[in-house]
């Protein structure tokens, strides 16, 4: 599953390294998205006692590949009243940060494309850029559903970013670094995962991450029963595919962050690092899917007040207690 990143470090030419790195990240993300879409359809099918895709390939595994090829040949419809520059740029603005963010993760000891000391902040910064793309899509479409979806999406994402970062800060406070590889190494050294010491932060992070990725029960921005498809209503063909790609990749990325922060990243007995890493990530992704197909959608005002009245104070309290306990031991 993991691309040969170690190659990149051994290359002499940095330019070749960059090109190969981008290819590796995109390859990994594409395979993941194709797999995750299939998985989501299978999981929803199991939960709803259906079969899900069965025709294309074994267990319908190549269904999404076929879907992607179909999307590639679909006509791109640009509605008449759109704001052209914003409309055309929006899918790219949503897509690009995902690629950059995915290159920051350590898949195993030494198996990392970019080992930066502020890796964690960078992931959040790139996550924040997606808001801009979503807003551009909603506004540029000149569609009431799209704009409403975009406004809701941005309002929800910014609100839940606060508890998300505060929860991650508890881990940063304990480990004293924001380097993703070092945080993992620290857990591997100490022999326990940070979820043991930070269960509350882990839960807050998970809930906030669900909202950040617009997943049910927080999928209000694209609540299909009221907003058609939210901010990407007017996008067809590959433009829609880019949004879809970014959405599933974001689910993958927040799960990777959670794996690094709370589940010890690549560390684990017997199996090699990347296997552990992806096992944990997929376990989390599986959990998100289970949640999505189990819980009903929240109302928008409930969603916002839950974030500010429950999650954020809880995250602040957790950070305070963490700081206090860290002093005692």
């Amino acid at each position, binding site marked *: 599953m993991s691309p040969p990143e170690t190659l990149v470090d051994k290359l002499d030419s940095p330019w070749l390294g960059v090109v190969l790195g981008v290819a590796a990240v995109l390859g990994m993300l594409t395979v993941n998205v194709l797999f995750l879409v299939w998985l989501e359809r299978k999981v929803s099918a199991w939960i709803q006692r259906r079969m899900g895709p069965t025709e294309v390939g074994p267990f319908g595994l190549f269904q999404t590949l076929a879907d992607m090829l179909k999307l590639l040949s679909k006509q791109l419809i640009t*509605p008449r009243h759109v704001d052209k520059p914003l409309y055309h740029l929006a899918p790219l603005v949503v897509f690009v940060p995902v690629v950059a963010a995915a290159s920051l993760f350590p898949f195993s000891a030494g198996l990392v494309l970019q080992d930066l000391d502020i890796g964690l902040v960078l992931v959040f910064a790139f996550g924040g850029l997606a808001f801009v793309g979503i807003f551009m899509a909603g506004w540029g*479409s000149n569609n009431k559903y799209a704009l*409403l979806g975009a406004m809701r999406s941005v309002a929800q994402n910014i609100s839940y970013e606060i508890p998300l970062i505060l929860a991650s800060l508890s881990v940063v406070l304990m480990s004293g670094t924001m380097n993703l590889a070092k945080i993992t190494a620290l857990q591997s050294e100490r022999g326990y995962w940070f979820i043991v010491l930070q269960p509350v932060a882990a839960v807050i992070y998970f809930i906030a991450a669900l909202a950040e990725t617009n997943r049910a029960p927080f999928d209000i921005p694209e609540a299909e029963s009221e907003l058609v498809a939210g901010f990407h209503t007017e996008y067809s063909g*590959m433009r829609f595919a880019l949004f879809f790609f970014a959405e599933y990749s974001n689910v993958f990325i927040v799960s990777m962050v959670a794996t690094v922060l709370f589940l010890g990243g690549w560390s684990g007995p017997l199996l090699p690092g990347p296997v552990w890493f992806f096992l944990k990530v997929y376990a989390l992704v599986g959990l998100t899917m289970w949640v999505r197909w189990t819980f009903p959608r929240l109302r928008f005002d409930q969603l916002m007040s839950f974030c500010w009245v429950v999650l954020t104070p809880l995250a602040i309290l957790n950070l305070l207690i963490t700081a206090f306990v860290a002093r005692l031991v």
Partner: protein
Amino acid sequence: MNGYAQLACYLVLGLVLGGVIVVLPQLLSPRSIGRTTENTYECGIDTVGSAWMRFSITYYVFALIFVAFEVDILYLFPVAVAYEPSGWRGLAEIAAFLVILSLAILYAWRKGVFVWKSHRAPQSSSGPNA
């Protein structure tokens, strides 16, 4: 080349590849345009008015509170990193900062900001929130 230059290259290459992905179907896909193909996808009948209407002020309040918190958090990042060697003084500092932060939430909460009331924007015919 340091990691940040590489990251910039990733952004640029991602932009180029994304562009290719979007342009490629233009060559492959059919191009048939009917009378309603390019209509706004809202409902069967013709769309009334533009989507660019005024939105509720509640969104703005949330955005402002968010910005304040984001800046607060921005200060907390370096503080959290340097917390280990800072001693009890560090705890006092971070505690004071977090208490001030909580006061902001407490105030907004008591003022009922987090209760999302529906009210009509004067210009739009339908409010943005039900």
